[in-house]
């Protein structure tokens, strides 16, 4: 890590051109860690840490959309802020176009900000209410000291048109727009400098269904038109299925499964992925009776302050064994284009066939270091077909 730091300080990022060797991944993340310290006691000693992100390794390929899903507290938003370097990583390495950007300072990141942009969830609080749309969307030009061809105003109006807003609304204020329109403004701002990578954190979750579809389609069109690469972070598995090429499923700061869309949704390998997918209510009243597929996870996600030992999912997993409690499963490729971190995956060969029989549910729950208090007594079991 100290090596990485030394290198990054010496490397000058060249002007968006000729990286040393053309990498096959636009963004490469290795062992990314972010811990938020907790201080307690008389002397404010560091007594622990919220392990928000704890060792992520993945690539983002040029032109693809990587979807990141997980429940609240799984670290997906922290991950988004780390790869856009809005947060300083505790450990690991982030490479963008072959350059180590893990510990770049604000100044050194500035040229990179052209290439990496972020879209935020809340279209209400992410726009300054005292600035006009023109000022908001042209801010990136001012910050980077760029004067686009034809002048800033013309460029901004083109951007507004690109995202489906009336260019004549240049001088209006955010409160004059609806939620969906504001999200379009946020997108226009993100696209101003023609970035290569756009990280969108819950881009549509604050929007109504009919507006959500407009924005999803817009993101789709812009990707085709501008050749963008997306990392889309969302909790809505339906949206993720619609927009992503590949999907990373996160649980308690770790990626548990990383696979292309079709295989992930059709044959999930990690039990958590399977449970997550089965939990989504299907908008089809005829399938209501068919509940045998549903896996009801009991209890809540454990605290990221003291995550369970071994596999972090073992406290809620119906397939957990002694091995799962003790040894953390590595994220390995179990099939072409599919990485899974599980000792006993679904839809694939068992990775630890000699393992003792599944620990009884009560035992698993009893020994679970469940600081949330609710994990205790939350016997993980498949309740498929229960509640008839």
């Amino acid at each position, binding site marked *: 890590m100290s090596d990485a730091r030394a290198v990054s300080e010496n490397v000058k990022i060249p002007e968006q051109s000729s990286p040393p060797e053309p990498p096959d991944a636009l963004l490469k993340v290795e062992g990314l860690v972010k811990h938020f310290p907790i201080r307690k006691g008389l002397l404010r000693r560091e007594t622990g840490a919220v392990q928000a992100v704890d060792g992520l390794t993945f690539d983002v390929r040029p032109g693809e959309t990587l979807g990141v899903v997980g429940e609240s507290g799984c670290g997906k938003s922290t991950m988004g802020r780390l790869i856009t370097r809005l947060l300083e990583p505790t450990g690991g390495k982030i490479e963008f176009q072959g350059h180590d950007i893990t510990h770049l300072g604000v100044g050194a990141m500035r040229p990179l900000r052209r290439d990496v942009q972020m879209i935020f969830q809340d279209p209400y609080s992410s726009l300054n209410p005292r600035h006009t749309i023109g000022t908001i969307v042209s801010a990136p030009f001012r910050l980077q000291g760029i004067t686009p061809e034809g002048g800033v105003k013309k460029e901004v109006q083109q951007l507004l048109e690109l995202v489906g807003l009336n260019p004549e609304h240049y001088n209006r204020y955010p409160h004059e727009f609806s939620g969906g329109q504001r999200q379009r403004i946020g997108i226009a701002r993100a696209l101003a400098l023609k970035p290569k990578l756009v990280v969108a954190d819950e881009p549509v979750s604050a929007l109504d269904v009919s507006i959500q579809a407009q924005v999803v389609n817009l993101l789709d069109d812009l990707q085709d038109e501008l050749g963008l690469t997306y990392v889309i972070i969302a909790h809505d598995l339906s949206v993720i299925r619609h927009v992503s090429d590949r999907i990373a499923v996160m649980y308690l700061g770790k990626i548990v499964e990383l696979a292309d869309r079709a295989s992930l949704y059709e044959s999930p390998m990690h039990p958590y992925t399977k449970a997550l997918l089965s939990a*989504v209510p299907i*908008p089809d009243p005829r399938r209501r009776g068919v509940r045998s597929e549903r896996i009801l996870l009991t209890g809540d996600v454990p605290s990221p302050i003291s995550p369970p030992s071994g596999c972090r999912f073992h406290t809620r997993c119906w397939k957990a064994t002694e091995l799962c409690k003790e040894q953390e499963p590595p994220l390995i490729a179990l099939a072409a284009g599919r990485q899974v971190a599980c000792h006993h995956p679904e839809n694939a060969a068992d990775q630890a066939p000699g393992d003792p029989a599944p620990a009884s549910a009560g035992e698993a729950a009893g020994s679970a270091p469940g600081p949330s208090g609710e994990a205790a007594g939350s016997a993980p079991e498949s309740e498929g077909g229960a509640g008839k």
Partner: protein
Amino acid sequence: MSNPDKTGAAQSGPAAPEAPEAPLSGLVPGEVAEAGSAAPSAFLEVRDLRVHFPTDDGLVKSVDGLSFQLEKGRTLGIVGESGSGKSVTSLGIMGLHTAGQYGRRKARISGEVWLDGKELLTADPDEVRRLGGRYMAMIFQDPLSALHPYYTIGRQIVEAYRVHHDVDKKTARKRAVEMLDRVGIPQPDKRVDSYPHEFSGGMRQRAMIAMSLVNNPELLIADEPTTALDVTVQAQILDLIRDLQKEFGSAVIVITHDLGVVAELADDILVMYGGRCVERGPAEKVFYEPQHPYTWGLLGSMPRIDRDQTERLIPVKGSPPSLINIPDGCAFNPRCPYADVPDGDRTRTVRPELRPVGERHFSACHMAQEERTRIWTEEIAPKL
């Protein structure tokens, strides 16, 4: 205002059910519900409910003529986007529309709400209050803000029980523990003394449900009960609501923007747009033979978890209307791709009435039914 405000009338007027007073100004003639003063046979019947909030910018018509019935043991899903009036409807039924969100002026409410043969809007407010919590209860969207942060869960449940039951604290507490146990909170005898912030989101919603059900209400209104929750927890809560309904046999209204939640829970669906009902019918009909362009829009906008859909979504153009300036004619006409299909200018001038299109299935659209069926089966359904 020339017309007396109905709330005021309700407070001073006789408690006996009576024919609704003259409708509020600004209503389209012919929109007045048939003056049905007779007690209906349905367990819950809402007739021409209007909830209007006077504001400095104008009259906000949050609910503008809504009617439906609901029987015990059945679940009605009210679907709509933000600002469609779905939440205000529930507050209107519960008599909670005084909530200060629209400033100091009182809401104007008219129409009829019949619960088990009793009309609520003209009844003595004190009587309606006593029905609240006992015969009709509510589950709110965000249990963290809906529970009092300074009182323990147990105390809040005990309070809900003791308003309606003359029992001592010990008995009520026993009941609270029992209810917490029933909704699946582990170690209920310990957790009963926890504060809301000490619970996780899912546990809080369970506690909220326990509190709503402590008096075995016959009508349960759940307003976005799972919107603030994670998907695995949502599945648990939906399951719980369904099981509890079977056990208690109550009538349930689920208000949500999520078509998945509605498909999971509801027997009947009511689609709201701009404070009005645009389509109402059995869940299966609404999903498989929808008869209103807005319903098509909702179905087309929704990404599907159960299909590998590479096609683009079919969004509804534009944004929902302002409830102060609801478009004339059909409220949906500025966003409707078929607004020009009916002859003349009817969609823009005449408000469409809710008309039967099948068994217990109603829709408010000017297009001929055959035309709608054709558009749905030929143009929309194949793309979904």
